């Protein structure tokens, strides 16, 4: 089946599974997970990067053919997110930036207002901006206006593995936005990733569920398969649901 590639900025991706670098029991697992999952984009918190470390640099575990998506984790304001993005670019991490502005460390909910501000500034500076937000349609339209490259609504709070708690809101973004919708956060199992893709999400970002699995490499592959299955189902147009059952051999068939 023909499918278009996922285009973000100037790069087109075959894989619709984005991954993350956090929470692994060892960084050596990251390249193995990437190979098994076929993920072509991986996010890393700038705060975790220590290029001058005498012992460990997380960037050295990310193969060159995988696009780096630095994120602004730890930023509390638009201003901080903007500075983190600029530092990331100067540090050679490229033009992609995932904006994470979180003022609530209890539930790790994104601050949509600050995120919008940061997106506008960074898009003007030529960044490929992927803002992580609460699914909110008017906000998503404004992100479109100010030059975001995609919208990344959360399925449920980061790290909770609760799946698509915000499903109805995400469906409205998918229906009404021109930008790619990448469901980020809260996806705890492959079936939930498939669910997001079946709905028509353009991609999903999965970190905790892969990194904290007993076997992150196999789990990476499982997610890749689920994302493909969900995408294919979406393209194949899932049959409509109905409240009444439709027997394959109708009881009233003899009347025809």
């Amino acid at each position, binding site marked *: 089946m023909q499918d278009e590639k996922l285009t973000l900025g100037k790069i087109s991706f075959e894989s619709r599974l984005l991954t993350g670098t*956090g*929470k*692994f*029991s*060892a*960084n050596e697992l990251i390249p193995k997970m990437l190979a098994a999952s076929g993920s072509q984009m991986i996010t890393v*918190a*700038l*705060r*975790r*990067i*220590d290029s001058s*470390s*005498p*012992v*460990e640099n997380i960037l050295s575990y990310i193969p060159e053919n995988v696009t780096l998506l630095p994120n602004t984790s*730890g*930023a*509390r304001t638009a201003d*901080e997110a903007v*500075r*983190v993005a600029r*530092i990331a670019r100067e540090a050679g991490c490229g033009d992609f930036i995932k904006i994470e502005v979180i*003022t*609530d*460390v*209890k539930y790790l909910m994104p601050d949509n207002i600050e995120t919008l501000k940061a997106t506008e500034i960074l898009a003007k500076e030529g960044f490929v901006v992927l803002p992580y937000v609460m699914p909110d349609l008017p906000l998503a339209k404004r992100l479109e206006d100010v030059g975001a490259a995609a919208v990344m609504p959360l399925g449920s709070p980061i*790290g*909770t*593995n609760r799946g698509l708690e915000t499903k109805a809101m995400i469906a409205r973004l998918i229906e009404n936005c021109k930008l790619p919708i990448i469901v980020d956060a809260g996806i705890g199992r492959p079936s939930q990733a498939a669910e997001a893709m079946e709905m028509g999400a353009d991609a999903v970002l999965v970190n*905790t569920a892969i*990194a*904290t699995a007993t076997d992150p490499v196999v789990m990476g592959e499982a997610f890749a398969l689920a994302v493909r299955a969900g995408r294919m189902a979406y393209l194949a147009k899932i049959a409509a649901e109905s409240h009444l059952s439709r027997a394959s051999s109708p009881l009233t068939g003899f009347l025809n």
Partner: protein
Amino acid sequence: MSFNNVIKEFEGFDFPAFFETVTDSDVERVLGKEKLNNMDFLILLSEKAAKFLEPMARKSHQVTVQYFGRTIHLFVPLYISNFCSNECTYCGFNIKNSIKRRKLSLEEVEAEAVAIAKTGIQHLLLLTGEAHQVTPVSYLVDVVKCLKKHFASVSIEIFPMDECDYRSLKAVGVDGLTVFQEVYDKKIYKSVHLSGQKSDYLYRLNAPERGAKAGYRNVNIGCLMGLGEPRSEAFFTGMHGRYLEDNYLHTEVSLSLPRFNPAEGDFVPPFTVNDKTFVQFLCAFRLFLPRAGISVSTRESALFRDNLISLGVTRYSAGSCTGVGGYAVEDHSQTPQFEITDERSVEDVVAAIVRHGYQPVYKDWDQIA
């Protein structure tokens, strides 16, 4: 607003009588819940719950992996002075102790910083005794400025301050604050803090809150296990954590579990907390406050710390010196604040973490100013 209001609500609360009423099915019910309320937490701290240590540990492990992954964050403590005007009966820095007093010069701080930074650990915890004349805020500001050249994150574990002083230190790069109440029981608090600023219970109790108000990213609290009745003290520590979480959404709350080392000095703590109870408290904290960081210092033995890795701990100090300085130049004061039991080097602690299937994290913060 103060956590003291919560403490007051429990004045007259009969802890032993409550623990008497706890049944096995209460504990099982709490272990089946996703979000624990105050009384659920207290049930997990009861002696009855000790019977359920294994299921508690399993759930604590699972929740910790979910929120933190298989990672242990590393930090190094640096004591810059042991001058102290407080008379705390249990502390090596007690003003009445005739020990060699010493304070690091800025050149010495620089040398210590260089030595510590060689380990690759980017998180430094700065400690000092309380002596406003010898180590005033202006000195601390200079020390922090020096340390920030070498570390991504500098936290403080120093005497409680006014909010404006916390802000002064935040302005030069401090991002985390540790203040242990030591003991929440007011009578015992008075009996062990005989004189000095530290004898002001409320000023200390409200210090973490002042830090949160000053905008610190991380506030770390704890009680010194052994000073007060352990189960109620653990309860108030957890309640204090939840109070801070509920009122300061921008602040990461974390807990430490310092416990008297039996090998330590002349002070005999009135209570003891054995390893099993320690682990029970650790798991109860984790289940009550799933997102809270939990630290266990080198007061505990290497073997014990290694076994805690998969139970809910998220932060370890490593290669620590608890005298003044000690990383670049040997500490000649020979008067540590407390005795270290886990004496391994950073490399050895890192190797143990890796052996347990966990990733040691050297850096997880940047100051963006």
